[in-house]
C-alpha cells in the first residue's frame, strides 16, 4: 500500500467522467480530498491523497491522464526554523489547510506537515521569513 499526495488539474471543459468516483469504485483507490477549488467553466484544482498498491496507483494516474486531468505528485515539503520562531501566529492566518495552528494552551505554533498542501502562502506570511521549501 502506497500513500501519495497529488495536485490534480482539471481542464475547463467537463471531462464527462466522474473521476474521483471511478478512482474509488473501479480502481479501489482510497481517496482523501485535502483541498478542492473547482468552478464550472474554469480550470479546477484538487489536492488529493491517494492510497493503493503501487500498480493500482499507476493505473489510476494513467486513467486520469486519458481524461486530460493533469496529476502531479507533491514531493516538495515546507520546513521552518522553529528555534527562531516567536509564535506570533501570522503564518497560521493564511494556512487554510490547517497545517499551521496555534495551540490554545501553550500559545505556541504547531506545524503538522501531513496536513500541508504546499500552497506556499506561509513563506510570504511569516514576518521573520522562517519558512522554506524543501525540494526533496
Amino acid at each position: 500500500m502506497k500513500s501519495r499526495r497529488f495536485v490534480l488539474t482539471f481542464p475547463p471543459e467537463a471531462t464527462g467522467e466522474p473521476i474521483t468516483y471511478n478512482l474509488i469504485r473501479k480502481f479501489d483507490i482510497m481517496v482523501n480530498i485535502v483541498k478542492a477549488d473547482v468552478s464550472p467553466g474554469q480550470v479546477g484544482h484538487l489536492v488529493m491523497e491517494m492510497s493503493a498498491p503501487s500498480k493500482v496507483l499507476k493505473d489510476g494516474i494513467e486513467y486520469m491522464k486519458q481524461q486530460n486531468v493533469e496529476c502531479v505528485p507533491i514531493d516538495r515539503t515546507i520546513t521552518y526554523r522553529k528555534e527562531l520562531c516567536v509564535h506570533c501566529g501570522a503564518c497560521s492566518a493564511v494556512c487554510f489547510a490547517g497545517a499551521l495552528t496555534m495551540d490554545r494552551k501553550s500559545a505556541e505554533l504547531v506545524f503538522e506537515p501531513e496536513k500541508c498542501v504546499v500552497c506556499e502562502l506561509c513563506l510570504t506570511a511569516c514576518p521573520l521569513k522562517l519558512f522554506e521549501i524543501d525540494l526533496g
Partner: protein
Amino acid sequence: MSKKRTIAEINEKILSGKAVVLTAEQVAAMGREATPAEIAEKVDVVTTGTFGPMCSSGMFINFGHTDPPMRMERITLNNVPVFAGIAAVDAYIGATETALPHDQYGGAHVIEELIAGRDVMMQATAKGTDCYPRTEVKTLINRESVNEMIMFNPRNAYQNYNVAVNSTSKMKYTYMGTLLPSFGNATFSTSGELSPLLNDPEMRTIGIGTRIFFGGTTGYVAWHGTQFNTGKPVNEHGVPVGNSATLALIGNAKEMNTRFIRAAYFEKYGVSIFVGVGIPIPVLDEDLARRVMIRNSQIETNVLDYGSPGHDLLGRANYESLFSGEISLNGKKIRTAPLSSLRVAREIAETLRGEIAAGRFLLTAPVENFKMTSGLNNLEIRL
C-alpha cells in the same frame, strides 16, 4: 472597607520579599472565584506583557567622533538611510525605513543586528565645515563601539486594536498580515487580558516616568504615545473598544535582548519590529483589583474590513473568541489568527513577575498622569 495601599508600601513589601506578585492571566483566573475586595487584600502587584509588531519604533544612536571630526549629514547603516538631521554624529534609526529595491531589510533589522552585537556598515557624507572638516566616512560599527543606543518609540503598547478581515475577492497584504479573500481569515494583535493598558484602562498607575520591562531590560514611559485617544467608547467592563491609548517608551538598547526585539517584514507592506513590553500594575485598591481581573471574554474590539478603503466597521468580537481560533461575524464563521505573540507576552509577564518577587524591580508612581483626550485630528487637504 476595601483595603488601600500605596506604591511606597508595596515597594517595602517587595524589598522584604513579602510582596504577592501575579501575572494578569493568573489574576484573571483567580478572579473567577475571588471578589475584587479579596484580590485587593491578597495581591500586591500584577504583571502584564505584550510582544507585537509596533511600527512606530526606532533608536537614537551616537557613533562617536572621527578625527578630524565630521558633521554627518547623510548616513546609511547597512545601506538603510537613517535620520541625520540632528547633531553631528547623532542619528535616529527608524524601524520602518528601507532603501529600494531591498524593501525587506530595514531599520528594524539594523536595530536587531546592533542589539545582537553584530557589526553594521556605516557610511556617511557631509559638505564639510570649518569646525567639522571631514566629508565622508565608511566603517563598521557595533554595540560596543558606539556611545549610546537609546530606543525611543513614539507609539507602542496600543490599548486594544482592531480585528482585520477582507471582504473582497482578492488577497490583501496589510500590516495586519495577509488577509485571505472573502472573509477567509481574521487577524488581531493584542495579548488580551495580559495586555498592559487593558489592565489599567484609565491609566491610574501608568504615566510619565513609569518603570517598565522594555525589550529585555528596564525602560520607562516617556510620554503618552502618538495618536493617544481616550475618547473611544468603553464597554460595560470599562474597557475601550478598538484602538485607543498608546505609550511613548524609552530605554537603553545596549542592554536589550533580541529575544524581545525582533525585526519583521510584512509582505507587500513593509518592515516593522516586534517590541516586548511589560508593565507592572500595583493593586492599590479594589477598583484596580477589579481592573486587573479582566478576562478575555470581557475585552471587545471592532472588526474592520481592510478590503474597503475606509476600513468599514463590520462588527465586534471579544478576545475569548479571537483566541479560540474562530469568530462569528454576521452569522458567518471566520478563522482567526494572532499577529502578536502570546507565548512571548507570557514570558515577559513572568520575567517581570520574577524580577519583582526577587526584589530587583521596584514600582514607580507616575511623575505625571496623562491628560485624557476626546479624539484625534484628521489631516485636512488644504492645497
